[in-house]
């Protein structure tokens, strides 16, 4: 790992200033993606801006018909939070099944979303629930946030502060994990509620995406059988040593069925 300067700002405004002043600086929260990348020298930031001391990025609270989760909430906090379990149990389930115990003790929802790994779990929940991302500059709809592999709408000096999840009538998540790495080979987050019927697929393609044919089928008939016959086109899906695009396309249908069954 190359060395870097280290800053720990106490406020969001100071963190934004530090990132704006140095285009080679990077933000860090749990570090469970960034630190391994730094070790491999895939990245060479001049400075790390540690967000963990910023109070306005913390906390999980119910605000009317939405659940607002601060970007610094660790996976274990989302998994065990009583408000999350009551309002969106599928989200608590998702958080409880990210990586392993130690990853969940350090990794944060904001870090996972800002990184947008194709095999990450949280992007599926954000897109599948039609959440709104609150940043240091603006509010971004989930549909406009995930732009491509490891790419989001966030600007270099823009920090994700919180995520607001509209509370659905029902929601479910299912994924097929790679047996060695535990990363998602294909996953589906489905929901029905104020944002309509939504089906978000993660792990299968270079970026999380919505499955329109499944959404239409579920809007007409909310049941696992409704999606069972819908085939995902393998064109453009990931193909690697862990699985071919055709295999992942097959998994998409299976995971969507399981997610609907889990949602009840």
């Amino acid at each position: 790992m190359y060395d870097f300067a280290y800053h720990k700002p106490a406020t969001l405004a100071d963190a934004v200033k530090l990132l704006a002043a140095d285009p080679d600086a990077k933000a860090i929260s749990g570090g469970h993606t960034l630190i391994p990348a730094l070790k491999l020298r895939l990245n060479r930031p001049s400075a790390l801006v540690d967000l963990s001391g910023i109070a306005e990025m913390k906390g999980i609270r119910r605000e009317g018909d939405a659940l607002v989760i601060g970007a610094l909430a660790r996976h274990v906090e989302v998994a065990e939070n009583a408000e999350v379990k009551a309002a969106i149990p599928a989200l608590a389930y998702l958080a409880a099944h990210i990586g392993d115990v130690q990853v969940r003790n350090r990794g944060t929802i904001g870090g996972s979303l800002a990184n947008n790994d194709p095999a990450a779990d949280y992007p599926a929940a954000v897109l599948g629930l039609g959440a709104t991302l609150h940043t240091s500059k603006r509010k971004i709809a989930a549909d406009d946030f995930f732009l491509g592999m490891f790419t989001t709408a966030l600007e270099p000096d823009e920090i994700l502060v919180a995520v607001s999840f509209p509370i659905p009538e029902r929601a479910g998540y299912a994924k097929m994990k790679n047996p060695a790495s535990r990363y998602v080979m294909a996953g589906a987050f489905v929901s029905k509620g104020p944002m309509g019927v939504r089906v978000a697929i993660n792990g299968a393609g270079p970026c999380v995406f919505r499955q329109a044919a499944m959404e239409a089928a579920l809007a007409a008939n909310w049941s696992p059988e409704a999606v069972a016959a819908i085939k995902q086109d393998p064109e453009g899906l990931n193909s690697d040593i862990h699985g071919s695009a055709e295999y992942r396309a097959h998994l998409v249908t299976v995971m969507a069925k399981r997610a609907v069954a889990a949602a009840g």
Partner: protein
Amino acid sequence: MPQVTLTVNGKQHTVEVEGRTLLVELLREKLRLTGTHVGCDPSQCGACVVHVNGDSVKSCTTLAVMCEGAQVTTIEGLAAPDGTLHPMQEAFREYHALQCGFCTPGMVMSAVDLVRKNPQGLSEKEIREGLEGNLCRCTGYHNIVKAIAAAQEVMHGRRASLAAAAE
């Protein structure tokens, strides 16, 4: 050069580090606490697990500078000052839960955290799931799981000793 002040096994240290210094490097190279191991390096194997502010974490994927003010416990801090082993350590010995021993410090630290946070008791399946972040390449999982199942009875006071837990 940044300085970090943290408490390790009850003793406060102020150490000069680089921004890039990992917690495991601080523990092993600066404080000479070499019980914490580095196995894989990219946070897969769990040989480096220690407790930071009461949570098990992979010290190979934690920057030392981010541990300012933290309470850290390593495998060296588990036994009593007189050398009496922690019930989890005793159980690992009793149940032959190790072969080469390389993964053992991380296994024990993960297991202690897992048992502490589940006072209601863990099933065999839950113990296995709780160890997802720890790899043993001697394929010793079976006895590790047995050791943890026995140790939880002692740690939560349901049995007075491991001998009683085995009955």
